[in-house]
């Protein structure tokens, strides 16, 4: 899709589709019989906010990528998630070949044709295939509608091969989401699976370039938060792990609420379980607004403006 067509589609879609915030506050959802979690939303202001999700995968069933997205959007609407950053269409490959990541990205592009009012695309790359990744970045972000990059477990985040990708991402204002996890204190990680500590090394080589620390180390988030604390360009993605009490409070305390992002990691995770950790955290509603929506919106604005959008 070229830029003009993308913008046209976005405007049309935005004009015709209800937002999740509208859906979440519609009459049917406010019926107590259909609203079993009303108490979670407190005053209701947060429910009207419309959360933006940094981390989602379209794994719902359907005959086409767009139909799969339609199913996912219906579920997102139930819990007030308005926008989703999507990436890595299934089947998921740990170390994709260029052909494989291009095919995965084709699915995301197909989704964006119909759902650009609700979804932002992150191009899936594998720096092991550096030139092919840079070419794909051009195809999907510079020449296409995507606004960010997803890096998974194909290359360790501290690898030098990532440097050209980060530099080009910075030029394109594309937001990078790098998966991280700490399994058995790092001993259980996949061969090329990154830790937040490795991502901190990468960030140190690229000051001023915002990067999202996917999962913030996962279940060992307390280590992950420590690892990225001194790198002001790293943002904590809360999604993908169990909703263990204390994570959000620690992230806000150590990083500041403006460096913390709601993410779900659906399809594998539940929107509800991941939203619940933010809504249930002992932090102010103002901080929840930042985490659920405003921080991500701010991070995406440079890329959106580059494409002539305001978000």
């Amino acid at each position, binding site marked *: 899709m070229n830029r003009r067509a993308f913008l046209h589609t976005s405007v049309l879609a935005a004009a015709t589709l209800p937002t999740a915030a509208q859906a979440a506050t519609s009459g049917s959802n406010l019926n107590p019989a259909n609203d079993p979690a009303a*108490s979670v939303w407190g005053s209701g202001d947060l429910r009207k906010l419309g959360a933006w999700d940094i981390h989602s995968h379209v794994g719902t069933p359907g005959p086409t990528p767009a139909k799969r997205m339609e199913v996912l959007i219906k579920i997102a609407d139930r819990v007030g998630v308005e926008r989703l950053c999507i990436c890595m269409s299934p089947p998921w490959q740990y170390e994709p070949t260029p052909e494989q990541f291009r095919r995965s990205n084709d699915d995301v592009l197909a989704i964006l044709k119909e759902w650009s009012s609700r979804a932002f695309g992150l191009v899936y790359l594998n720096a092991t295939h550096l030139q092919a990744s840079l070419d794909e970045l051009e195809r999907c972000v510079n020449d296409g509608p995507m606004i960010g990059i997803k890096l998974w477990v194909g290359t360790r985040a501290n690898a030098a091969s990532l440097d050209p990708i980060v530099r080009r991402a910075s030029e394109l204002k594309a937001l990078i989401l790098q998966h991280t996890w700490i399994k058995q204190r790092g001993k259980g990680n996949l061969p090329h699976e990154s830790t937040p500590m490795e991502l901190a090394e990468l960030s140190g080589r690229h000051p001023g370039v915002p990067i999202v620390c996917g999962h913030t180390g996962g279940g060992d988030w307390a280590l992950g938060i420590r690892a990225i604390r001194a790198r002001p360009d790293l943002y904590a993605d809360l999604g993908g792990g169990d909703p263990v009490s204390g994570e959000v409070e620690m992230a806000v305390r150590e990083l500041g609420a403006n460096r913390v992002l709601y993410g779900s990691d*659906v399809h594998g995770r*539940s929107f509800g379980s991941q939203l*619940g950790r933010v809504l249930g955290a002992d932090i102010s509603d103002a901080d929840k607004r930042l985490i659920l929506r405003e921080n991500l919106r701010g991070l995406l604005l440079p890329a959106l403006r580059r494409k002539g959008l305001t978000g």
Partner: protein
Amino acid sequence: MERRLFFASAAAVAASGLSSVAAPAAAAAVGLIDTNVTLNQWPIRQSWAPTPAALVQRLKRHGVTRAWTGTFEGVLHTDMAGANTRLAETCQREGGGILEPIGSVNPTFPDWEDDIRRCQEVHRMRGLRLYPNYQGYALDDERFVRLLKIATDRRLFIQIALSIEDDRSQNPALTALPVQAGPLVEVLPKVPGARLLLLNGGSRVLGGNIDLLQRLSAAGVMFDLATLEGVAGIENLLRRVPGIRVTFGSHSPYFYFESALLKLQESVLSPTELEAVRSGNAQALLSA
């Protein structure tokens, strides 16, 4: 609706004195039973509830009318009788009328049978919670089978915590792999009438081998939703394993309570299904 779910729901509705036609209202009237709450702090985490009062206050705010409450002391302490006494006293003194104590028993300890006796006869507990992976036995262990028989003879239900935390991120000094539920398929026919609720089944059980899940469900095992994940997870589980009985469980305060409640909002459930998850299946476990 599947036959098993219908009977479970019907039994619960009958027990509550409400007709099935009134199911939506019944959800509010019967309330919300949280089958997976635990007192005290897990050693490596600071939970959202520093005191029982804080726990009760938040549970009530979200409409919980009953909370089946164990104690983390029951995982690692050796003086299980002391842990159960403190649990019972705390629930009585500070439980706000909603915390119901669920005692712990470790069948590898000497004279563990007396812990069961005290739980029922002294503390008037209706159920027991087990932590096999932290206590060094599997579910095909003869001691477990004997425990299940004794509990069943006493009409106590059993909760088995298949996990407490993600085993990928445990402190190296406190590791325990999740409990394997598979042996229950062979064990349960040996203990007719056993009432079993598996907690924290997670992706390995609830999202894993569907054949095992179906066999456990067919044997009457129930599951809580605290670690049930995936988009529209409850709805998908009920469609994937027709007849499966799921109870509301939050794994509070180790988990944020709100995560469990939002799962109800994320799934489209019929009024009868919603009532069964909120309280009906838990009621059925008590009355079976």
